[in-house]
């Protein structure tokens, strides 16, 4: 895209992410070699499992393949929950983040508190609260809307997403040089116009990579819902293991599930990394 004039000293044009990627990449980011290790571990576990399988029993691979459609169904629920929680959390978090930069101290203070609270509360605690405190159905007028467990759990997941999104928005807005506000002000833009027409459009690019990181974290967090009894991939894996009642299936089966998550998250990580690098030179 746009080239940066060499040696510029404009604050507006300085790289968004000045930190250079450390050799070997950023800590915590998924890499292809992680997937390779995972695949290797799965192969090894399969080999060990096959060796342990008693005479006359199914092969481990056959057992895993037999349960794959069910696992896929469960995983679809993980994906659906992550989509919904991300959508709800992003919308609510954007509002909350804008409240965090409000000029009104009560609004700013309370939204900061809410953000910090939900950012630091353990996800599992939030999930339990939502499962236990939300009713199993909603009555609005004469309409009854059932609230199954997975919906309540999704709501629970969207709370930390909201809080993290709120911080992403606040951080992005505050990373825009003050001169942008000042020049907009001197052109007689109102604060709201400045925010919507000048500041936020510049924030979108900066927010995209952390937002996608957040999504990857959320996806990996969805198996927490198995603890509160949602029939997602983790729960169904446990069910399958219980039905098979074969110890040697345990390790390969969980590794197999892990591989699903890797295959889903790896492209997101790749894309996020690419965006980060592009914006770092592009600004």
């Amino acid at each position, binding site marked *: 895209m746009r*080239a940066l*004039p060499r040696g510029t000293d404009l604050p*507006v*044009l300085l790289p968004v992410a000045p930190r250079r990627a450390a050799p070997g990449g950023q800590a915590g980011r998924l890499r292809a070699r992680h997937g390779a290790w995972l695949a290797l571990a799965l192969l090894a576990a399969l080999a060990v499992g096959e060796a342990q399988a008693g005479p006359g029993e199914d092969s481990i691979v056959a057992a895993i393949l037999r349960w794959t459609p069910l696992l896929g169904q469960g995983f679809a629920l993980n994906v659906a929950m992550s989509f919904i929680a991300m959508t709800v959390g992003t919308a609510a978090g954007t509002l909350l983040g804008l409240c965090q930069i409000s000029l009104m101290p009560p609004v700013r203070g309370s939204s900061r508190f809410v953000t910090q609270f939900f950012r630091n509360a353990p996800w599992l605690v939030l999930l339990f609260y939502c499962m236990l405190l939300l009713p199993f159905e909603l009555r609005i007028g004469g309409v009854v809307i059932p609230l199954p467990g997975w919906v309540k759990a999704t709501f629970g997941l969207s709370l930390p997403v909201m809080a993290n999104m709120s911080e992403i928005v606040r951080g992005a807005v505050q990373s825009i040089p003050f001169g942008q506000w000042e*020049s907009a002000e*001197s*052109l*007689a833009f109102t604060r709201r116009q400045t925010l919507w027409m000048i500041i936020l459009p510049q924030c979108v690019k900066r927010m995209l990579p952390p937002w996608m990181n957040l999504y990857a974290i959320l996806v990996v967090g969805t198996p927490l819902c198995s603890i509160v009894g949602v029939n997602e991939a983790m729960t169904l894996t446990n069910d399958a293991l219980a039905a098979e009642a074969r110890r040697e299936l345990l390790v390969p089966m969980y590794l197999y599930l892990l591989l699903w998550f890797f295959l889903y998250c790896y492209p997101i990580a790749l894309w996020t990394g690419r965006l980060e690098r592009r914006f770092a030179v592009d600004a």
Partner: protein
Amino acid sequence: MPEQPLIRLVDVHKRFGANEVLRGVGFDVPKGDVVCVIGPSGSGKSTLLRCINALVPIEQGSIRVDGREVNDPKLDKLALRRKVGMVFQQYNLFPHRTALQNVMMAPIHVLKQERVEVEARARRLIAKVRLEGKEDAFPGELSGGQQQRTAIARSLAMNPDVMLFDEVTAALDPETVKEVLVTIRELAEEGMTCVIVTHEMGFAREVADHIYFTDRGVIVEHGAPREFFAEARDPRTRQFLSQIL
């Protein structure tokens, strides 16, 4: 009876915490005049300009712009700023918009003028600052001098009564300084009222009707350029001029 000055500052005081930045500044800027403010770093020049368009409030004194009291809690700041253009050292163009869009934004969204008419005017202004052909370039694709001229066009698009320039060439290479100064001089020659904070003494001497020298929040010396440079009496002014010239 002489005409009312466009800008009149009387005994302006401004402090940031314990730091008294302006300690009783006063001067007049008649309509159509060009006033240059010079002085050492930290003497409050930028603050002075920011006070004139109410970017920062003042504690004491009076600033009148076209008869409007800036130090009035009921002041319509937006109305004031529509009449006062300001150009910054760091250009502060909006990097996500092209040069043309930068110039058009405020007239469309602040003055609510017709887009077609605004665009025609914006193109004329871009031509005036000699940037034809750069209409669709983003700020990141322009040199410092080109960005600064775009910023000037952007301010002019509001049809201000007065333009404030805050060290607008300080971030530029020596070769590009000139192209920006030429633009400002043309404006001055067309009768635009200008308050210019600058370190370019040659430019100040050439373009100013009156020069003010500030130090530590007060005006220590002022005069028409010829006298100012030839007969500065105040030791601080003399020292400053000897360093700069």
